[in-house]
């Protein structure tokens, strides 16, 4: 080993920097997490703050310019207007329904992947779940549009079984969104079940519990945090969506469409900002509720 004094000047100064950093753990930590914190603080929270501030401004109805006067007119309009209340409730309902549908479909799939499938089958299924995420959102949404169209696959199949099929509308929106976000529910539940030791299931059976009881009393409570984690994805992604409902939702609007129309056609940025605040507040409430269940501690 060569001593420091024998190195080139560059090596010496590098060594000195390392020594200083070694002695000052706080400085080291600061340098390490500084850039990402800056990004989070300025680009992310800053933008959120700008959004909230803008929502408290107004618009000159004639020129369309933003008027920087503080008032709550935008929120008053949102709460007092029947239309916006309906859209908010509809959006919430869709997001909740998508989440429930995804839980119901994802749980058995994840259970099969984690506890039944052979290691080879397990790998194939993980890839199968992940592959749709590589395809474009629009391609998948339009694929559903074609399948749901009047003479599409779904109405044909429904016809064979003598069923009435939904066509375009809210049901189609829920179905399409549930399809789009399904991987985000399967993967956390799969990871949660993977961590559940087989001996836990055996212990339950050993103590006399049949399969159903074991699922209810042991498996579900153990993967509950994973379900909550997945639901945060599906719920928030659905809450902000406006493309799917445009493609398969018929004339229905969600909150995202109101934002889109006010940014584009109406050019009322302060009102768009006020509307965009609603999903943010809903998500904060949702996260607070999830935290209370203790589900966020072990995700």
């Amino acid at each position, binding site marked *: 080993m060569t001593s420091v004094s024998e190195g080139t000047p560059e090596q010496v100064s590098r060594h000195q920097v390392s020594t200083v950093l070694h002695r000052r753990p706080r400085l080291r930590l600061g340098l390490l997490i500084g850039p990402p914190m800056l990004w989070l603080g300025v680009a992310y929270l800053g933008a959120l703050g700008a959004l909230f501030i803008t929502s408290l401004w107004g618009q000159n109805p004639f020129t369309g310019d933003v008027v920087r006067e503080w008032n709550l007119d935008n929120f008053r309009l949102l709460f007092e207007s029947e239309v916006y209340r309906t859209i908010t409730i509809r959006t919430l309902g869709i997001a909740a329904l998508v989440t429930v549908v995804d839980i119901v479909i994802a749980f058995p799939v994840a259970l099969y992947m984690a506890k039944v499938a052979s290691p080879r089958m397990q790998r194939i299924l993980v890839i199968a779940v992940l592959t749709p995420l590589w395809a474009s959102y629009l391609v998948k949404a339009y694929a559903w549009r074609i399948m749901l169209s009047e003479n599409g696959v779904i109405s044909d199949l429904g016809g064979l079984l003598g069923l009435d099929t939904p066509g375009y509308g809210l049901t189609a929106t829920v179905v399409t969104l549930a399809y789009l976000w399904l991987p985000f529910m399967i993967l956390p539940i799969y990871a949660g079940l993977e961590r559940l030791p087989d001996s836990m299931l*055996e*212990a339950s059976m*050993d*103590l006399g519990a049949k399969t159903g009881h074991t699922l209810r009393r042991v498996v579900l409570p153990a993967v509950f945090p994973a379900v909550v984690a997945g639901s945060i994805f599906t719920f928030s992604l659905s809450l902000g969506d406006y493309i799917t409902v445009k493609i398969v939702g018929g004339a229905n609007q969600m909150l995202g469409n109101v934002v889109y129309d006010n940014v584009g056609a109406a050019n009322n940025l302060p009102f768009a900002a006020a509307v965009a605040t609603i999903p943010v507040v809903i998500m904060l409430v949702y996260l607070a509720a999830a935290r209370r269940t203790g589900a966020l501690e072990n995700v």
Partner: protein
Amino acid sequence: MSSPAPARNGAPAIAIRGLRKEFGSVVAVDEVDLDIANGEFFSMLGPSGSGKTTVLRMVAGFESPTAGTIELGGVDVTKDAPFSRDVNTVFQDYALFPHMTVAQNVEYGLRVKRVPRAERRTRAQEALERVQLGEYGARRPGQLSGGQRQRVALARALVNRPRVLLLDEPLGALDLKLRREMQVELKQLQRDLGITFLFVTHDQEEALTMSDRIAVFNQGRIEQVASPRDLYELPATPFVAGFVGTSNVLDGDAAIKLLGEPGTFSVRPEKIQLHLDASHVPTQHAVTAAGVVREVVYLGSATQSIVDLDHGGSLIVLRQNQQSSEEGDVAGRGAHVHLSWRREHTVPVTAG
């Protein structure tokens, strides 16, 4: 409460016939026959991969045998699911339910069987007190130490009053001191309750300490079933002689020269005496062997010497340090010594 099928009078607690288990092309358990009596503490001892745990898992119902039958109390349960067998298991990793309190864990089996709440509470509390955890009912498994979790697992199984308790290396994760304490406690518990214990371990000392009888497993087969004393004093095969206690085997030339007959023989190290002078060999010691000390290992309570015999092979000699051991007391490395022991301490072992 699902009542266990009535036992046939005099039927063994567990009867295993022609049990075989294949995983793909691997034979994990090969033609195992066992009868385990009611109230017996029975151990299955063997190295890892010898099939002992697989046998236990088949008795519990977690694996189904490729061939053979398992009877509990005279009733064939080979095809029964784990939840319909009157056995309970203490798992190696304890497998406590992390989202339940200790009391809820212990009550689980009773709840499944719809035992009324009041009785459930009393029995769970009794079981916890029996393992000295009466105060811990409200805690979560995550808040307990390894030894305490192990006791909870025990209470959770025993509260159901099973016909047979299956224990899968339950002490493996504990440190040596705690393990020794638990060995004594387990044995006491088993004697008090009178339940049949089927205990899996790879630790020969553990098996010798606690068991009424031991089955030694090797490569999916049983090498010998015997009491701890017989297993140690009269090992039937070289594998048993080596796995239980210290391996000390005479064979080939040495056997013919020293014992006058060909074959494989086992001598326990503590039966052999070591002398510097051949004239000190006691008269009742019929077998003597000359050799050179290769290694001397001080073990605290005893000293172990490894001696290379002049006739080939080597033997280990164990000597209690009854007097404070002085250097001159023990023959050092390279010393020429004479070993001697009684003829009856040479046990023939058939190659398995």
